[in-house]
């Protein structure tokens, strides 16, 4: 049986009359609040408030565990006990596992079982838990899609769209899931841009946690500078890279009360991956840096890179050690930086340099894996492209920072 267009419409009308109940819909307070959070005039102040809530919660939660208990556990009990029981304080093993003999805090010792464990468990773990807890609550209440809608216009200026906020926010926890989350972007151009930008400009939660613990007064400024860099270089990349940046339609769910069981499960799932992906790299990083010091390789590297580090970037040549450690873990590198004697300007520059100069090894591996979906060509494209962006960004953006610091009179 073949129906004409009119007959089809008639059939549709008849079915819908029998199956659909029509009536007025009363807007609820939840609907009204949902609308207000995506309108720029009210949505931006609310986003600012949520961001404040996040930052304040992050600082208080991480501070409670790290300053309140972890510092005491590691410095007053763990370190003195290790110094006492670990044999041969002059031996290589002592230097690698415990660090500097007579150090008064895990901050100074720099051994695998002292600084390594302190960074991973004492500083980074509380920061990661705080970050993911807040993020999961935002996801489960339905605020995250609204934030995506709100930021959509701004991200279109750099060739991305609102959903790019998901990998961005995830990267603030860890760049690895951030890179994976770029799969929700529509085109190859958008994916490449997002991967390059987040692996360079977005510091992970671990790095943020260490920065907050060691240089809290500079964290805000450093973040502003990095975010500015992301938009500046995003704009440039959007102009240079061929490809499409299409519009999308987003389905925004209603606001919901989070189920605490789900929150707990998600938190456990995400935090437990930190134990397997992050902690081994932190410990390995400490071993590698200590071995390089003991064999004299670090001094040789410092001499080789001295003209670049002291001349162009204006940081001490000893920064080479944190740069090596930063390849494994950025949080470890920042931790190392803070124990070096530097001026305020040098400290800010070196933290930005560490943030920008190379993604950590886990992110690097993830970029290769993502590129692999398009075969060897994809891997080469993602790697070469990311490294090209990276090299350009490091020299230009750190140079800009030095000029800004000079103008502001920061020594």
């Amino acid at each position, binding site marked *: 049986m073949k129906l004409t267009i009119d007959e089809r419409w008639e059939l549709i009308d008849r079915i819908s009359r029998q199956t659909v109940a029509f009536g*007025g*819909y*009363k*807007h*609820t*307070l939840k*609907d*009204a*609040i949902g*609308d*207000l*959070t995506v309108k720029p005039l*009210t949505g931006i*102040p*609310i986003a*600012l*408030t*949520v961001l*404040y*809530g996040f*930052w*304040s*919660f992050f*600082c*208080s*939660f991480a*501070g*409670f565990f790290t*300053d*309140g*208990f972890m*510092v*005491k556990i590691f410095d007053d009990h763990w370190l003195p006990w290790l110094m006492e029981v670990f044999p041969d304080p002059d031996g290589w093993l002592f230097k690698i596992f415990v660090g500097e003999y007579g150090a008064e805090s895990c901050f100074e010792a720099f051994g695998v079982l002292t600084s390594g464990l302190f960074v991973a468990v004492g500083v980074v773990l509380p920061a990661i838990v705080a970050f993911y807890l807040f993020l999961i609550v935002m996801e489960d209440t339905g605020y995250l899609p609204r934030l995506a809608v709100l930021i959509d216009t701004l991200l279109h200026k750099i060739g991305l769209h609102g959903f790019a906020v998901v990998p961005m926010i995830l990267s603030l926890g860890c760049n690895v899931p951030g890179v994976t989350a770029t799969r929700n972007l529509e085109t190859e151009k958008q994916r490449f841009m997002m991967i390059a930008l987040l692996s360079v400009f977005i510091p992970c939660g671990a790095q943020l946690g260490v920065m907050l613990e060691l240089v*809290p007064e500079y964290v805000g400024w450093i973040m502003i500078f990095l975010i500015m860099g992301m938009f500046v270089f995003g704009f440039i990349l959007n102009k240079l890279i061929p490809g499409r940046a299409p519009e999308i339609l987003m389905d925004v769910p209603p606001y919901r009360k989070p189920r605490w069981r789900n929150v707990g499960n998600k938190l456990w799932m995400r935090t437990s991956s930190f134990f397997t992906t992050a902690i081994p790299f932190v410990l390995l990083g400490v071993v590698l840096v200590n071995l390089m010091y003991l064999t004299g390789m670090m001094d040789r590297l410092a001499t080789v890179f001295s003209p670049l580090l002291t001349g162009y970037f204006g940081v001490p040549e000893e920064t080479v050690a944190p740069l090596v450690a930063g390849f494994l873990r950025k949080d470890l590198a920042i931790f190392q930086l803070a124990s070096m004697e530097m001026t305020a300007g040098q400290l800010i520059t070196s933290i930005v340099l560490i943030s920008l100069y190379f993604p950590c090894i886990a992110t690097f591996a993830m970029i290769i894996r993502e590129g692999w979906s398009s075969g060897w060509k994809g891997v080469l494209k993602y790697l070469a492209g990311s490294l090209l962006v990276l090299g350009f960004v490091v020299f230009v953006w750190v140079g800009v920072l030095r000029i800004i610091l000079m103008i502001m009179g920061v020594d």
Partner: protein
Amino acid sequence: MSNGTAFSYGRMYFAPLGLAMLAFGCAQIILGVAGRTYTWGLMDLSGEFMLWRGVILFFAGFILLSSLKDFSNIHQQGKMVLANGMVWVIACMEIFAMIAESVPGGEDGGWFNTLDGFLGAYAGPYIPSLWLLPFSLVALHYIRLSRRGSNAVIP
């Protein structure tokens, strides 16, 4: 009390509250930009994120005042709830920070704080949002009213 009367009272109540938010927000922004702090009795205009808090409070006041026109409309009430919610976020985070600071014993103390130290952490002065918190809780009454559905407006 009928809904109409409740909304009339609501407008009268939230107008000065909105002005207070706006005023405190402005004061914190000015002090924050100037890099200064001010403490008067139990009122504290200082702290790490004062400028940020000031901007939020300013917008909260602005949104609350803009909700007063046609206050019985559910969308306007949404603005009122959001404005008060912004104050709740700042105040709750401040309370959370106080709790987090009050429990551990400090650098030279024991594992946990002494009773005096614990209670001392809650002594003033307090930031403006904490002072505004009890007054902003009246918004809960209007949330309850809207949940009953009697004040919904069909567009």
